[in-house]
């Protein structure tokens, strides 16, 4: 009995050692290889732009004699995963949205950058401001690459391009009354609300999310939902609700179907739907929502590249900064990246080379637009601002807009704390 035990133990030990040797050498290889093979810059990007980032970053890598590894991530996960990723699999460079800047910079996860004067000259000031953050010293944390915004898409067969907001209101309501099932303005809300798509109407009435301090940074204590210049105009919201110009029961799917099936002549949406409209053979033109009391500016979303704190830990920070502030800022790189998912490039030189008519029109509809606030306190705003619109435009039994927005402002203030 004893001898079987010993043989068993011996065999196990031998097998384990043999396998361990194999496993050990396998695990040791990348560590050794790291020293001899080329330095690698790891980039996180989304699926739409993977191929374009591969191409652009590849060209840079070849010129610098290093490697790039482009890792595919779900866009939103890039933001959340950056705070939980372990250092050895962490990215050196990320593709991100400008409104993540505050959260990532306040967390110390991205490092400040400086663009050369020549690069700055080709990037609109608001795109740089969109990526700037700091409660004391304001610094830049990303190189803007593409800009996106919503506009008013007009089905030119069913309606004329509105000349003023009153004209839009008249045309939309006439179209709505023509047939049951028709929508006046297809702008998506749903029970959860959608502050992003409603923003042109909000800013057109004089509303804003956060004011600015004297130093020019966004001030989370100044909440524009209860600004007097906006509240005096809220009776217009009540009117729109009464006449059915805007209806919060229209959600994303409803708005899309209605416009594509000719049951809505006006659709508030962004460049991500250009292909769908073309496939439905609809003749259309994109314009900015006509100004109401003020310019009906849309929210602007700027996407760009940032350098993470991990680049320093991986010993590639200078390379990562060179790629982000140098190469990604050039017009040729931006044009390639903007074509990947049909967005407007941030670089003005690249902007001149945009040929897509609809995209150009979306670009024109962005004039005077407001970058979404990039401070982390914005997280407290979305559902409340959207909720105020839902309550005040739900048809019968709607809350008075003045009350709805005042309550939302109070809730935002208490959430920000």
């Amino acid at each position, binding site marked *: 009995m004893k001898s079987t035990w010993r043989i*068993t133990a011996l065999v*196990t030990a031998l*097998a384990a*050692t043999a*396998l*361990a040797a194999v*496993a050990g050498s396998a695990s*040791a290889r990348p560590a050794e290889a790291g020293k001899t093979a*080329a330095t690698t810059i790891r980039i996180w990007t989304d699926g739409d732009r993977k191929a374009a980032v591969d191409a652009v970053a590849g060209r840079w890598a070849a010129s*610098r004699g290093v490697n790039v590894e482009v890792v595919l991530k779900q866009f939103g996960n890039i933001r959340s995963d950056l*705070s939980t990723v372990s250092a050895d699999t962490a990215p050196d460079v990320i593709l991100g949205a400008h409104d993540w800047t*505050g*959260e990532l*910079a*306040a*967390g*110390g996860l991205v490092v*400040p950058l*400086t663009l*050369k*004067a020549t690069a700055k000259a080709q990037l609109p000031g608001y795109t740089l401001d969109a990526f700037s953050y*700091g*409660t*004391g*010293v304001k*610094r830049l944390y990303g190189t803007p690459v593409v800009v996106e915004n919503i506009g008013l898409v007009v089905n030119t067969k069913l309606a004329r391009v509105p000349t003023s907001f009153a004209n839009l209101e008249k045309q939309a309501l006439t179209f709505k009354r023509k047939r049951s099932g028709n929508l006046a303005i297809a702008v998506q809300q749903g*029970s*959860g*609300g959608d502050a992003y798509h409603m923003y042109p109407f909000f800013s057109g009435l004089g509303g804003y999310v956060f004011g600015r301090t004297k130093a020019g940074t966004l001030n989370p204590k100044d909440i524009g939902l209860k600004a007097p210049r906006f509240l005096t105009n809220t009776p217009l919201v009540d009117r729109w609700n009464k006449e059915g110009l805007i209806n*919060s*029961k*229209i*959600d994303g*799917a*409803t708005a899309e179907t209605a416009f594509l099936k000719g049951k809505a002549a006006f659709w508030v949406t962004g460049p991500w739907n250009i292909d769908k409209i073309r496939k439905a053979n609809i003749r259309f033109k994109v314009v900015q929502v006509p100004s109401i009391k003020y310019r009906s500016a849309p929210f602007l979303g700027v996407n760009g590249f940032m350098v993470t*704190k991990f680049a*320093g830990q991986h*010993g*590639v*920070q*200078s*390379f990562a*900064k060179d790629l*982000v*502030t*140098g190469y990604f800022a050039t017009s040729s790189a931006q044009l390639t990246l903007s074509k990947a998912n049909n967005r407007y490039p941030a670089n003005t030189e690249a902007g001149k080379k945009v040929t897509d008519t609809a995209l150009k029109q979306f670009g024109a509809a962005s004039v005077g637009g407001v970058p979404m606030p990039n401070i*982390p306190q914005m*997280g*407290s705003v*979305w*559902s409340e601002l959207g*909720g105020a619109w*839902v309550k005040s435009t739900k*048809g019968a*039994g709607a809350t008075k807009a003045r009350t709805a927005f005042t*309550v939302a402002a109070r*809730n935002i203030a*208490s*959430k*920000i704390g």
Partner: protein
Amino acid sequence: MSTTAVRTQPPAAAPDVEWGMPSKLIAAFSGTVGRVVKLVLLSLVNAIVVWAAIILAQESKWPALVVLAAATAAIDAAYLSKRAVPLKFLIPGTIFLVAFQAIPIAYTVNVAFQEYSVGHIITKTEAIQAIEENSLAEPADGKIYTMTPATDASGGLVLLLIDDQSGKTFLGTREGLEPLPKDALTVDETGLITGARDYKILQGEQLAAVDTELSDYVVPVQGAAIRAEGLGTALELEPTLRYDATANTFTRIDNGKVFRDNGKGSFVAGAEELEPGWRTYTGFRNFSSIATDPLIRKPFIRVLIWTIAFATLTVLASFFVGLFLAIVLDKPTMRLRKLYRALIFLPFAIPAFLVLLIWAGLLNDDFGVVNQVFHLHIPWLFDPWWAKVSVILVGVWMTVPYFFLVSMGALQSIPSELVEAARVDGAGPLQVFRKITLPLLLVAVTPLLIASFAFNFNDFGKIYLLTGGGPPAEDQSIAGATDILISYTYKLAFESGKGANFGLAAALSIVIFFVVASISAVTFWRSRTLEEMR
């Protein structure tokens, strides 16, 4: 003697026994085959352990290494010895219990006692470094240079610089900035330095080797310092904050404002806070803020009551509808019985998130199918009370198949003699159901009811996908009319303040655990009386 006796008298029953599949398998794996399989598996485990040990040793995680070695030795001993048979069966289960229950719970509890949120993610050392870096400012007349890293005769790193405005050439070293004759550098038509007389320009892997040195490289000039920004640019930056390591404070250079460590992971001066902060232990602060924060306290009771009502009503209604269907379809003589059963089971087979998104569309007030088909004008999702009804109805629709299946099984396990005996004694069908079937059924089903209750109590997906917690409730607080505790926790922990607050979320989920656990415990205790009746 005895051997012959065995040989001559084989067990008479042996040929008649039909061995089942499990027994055959056990037989096949006993003996040599089994031993070999066992050895291979055990060797694999050991191999993985050795591989893990190498990594742990590389990262100097000694306590973990000791635990790993001890656990492996124990596992090997248990499986190699002939004794400890129960242990052999217990070990795999225990490993999974530790990996999937104990560790996540320990991690959650650990996080609950930390300041771990947006702005408090990195370590203190990293935070100090980041504050220093983020507070560097470009002076008003700061210069920007085109830069090329190079090495001097002794192999030390130097920066070859061209002032972007004046076009003058300089040599930047750790000592300072000195002018360089123009002809010492070769510059191409794009303005890049391609060659240098006395210096060796670094490229590719040579650059990679000095990357860290380069990003920390500082060329002192009066007042400010020139720092490399990437590989092609250098610029003047001046610090606006200074860290004092002995006092553990930051001082703002222009006005002398002192920022002190507040013990909660931040340097603060009055209301002003330096970003980033760091992740740190703060004791019971997350728990005490649950009790004191008006944002949490105000709607808590309302949300708690609704959560209990939602979970209870969903489970009870599903159970009774499921039971009713099971009884109705229990008649073996019914035609198409299997088809009906399959149809009832169908909702269970569709992924839950899909069901919820479809229902959210169907229940849309103005454009949803439900209102259009039935010519109704019910504000299913926009009225606080109707939204509650919708949530429960959809919940019931999703849970009925489960209780249908469970009840069907449980009904068949009730001995038919009992029912027949009751009938003989003159009991009507309702009486039989109330006095015999239901009590016996409940004995089997109560644990499942409790489990289902606990599941619904924390069914975040149902609320989030169907109503998003909305519509806004009458009390105008942040919690919507259909927000249950877990979805409200999500709003508090991830959509307020500066965004994600993992510490608070962990603390809240521990509180929720205690609520669910105490409700379940009471119910279990009361259900024992049912069992005693049996």
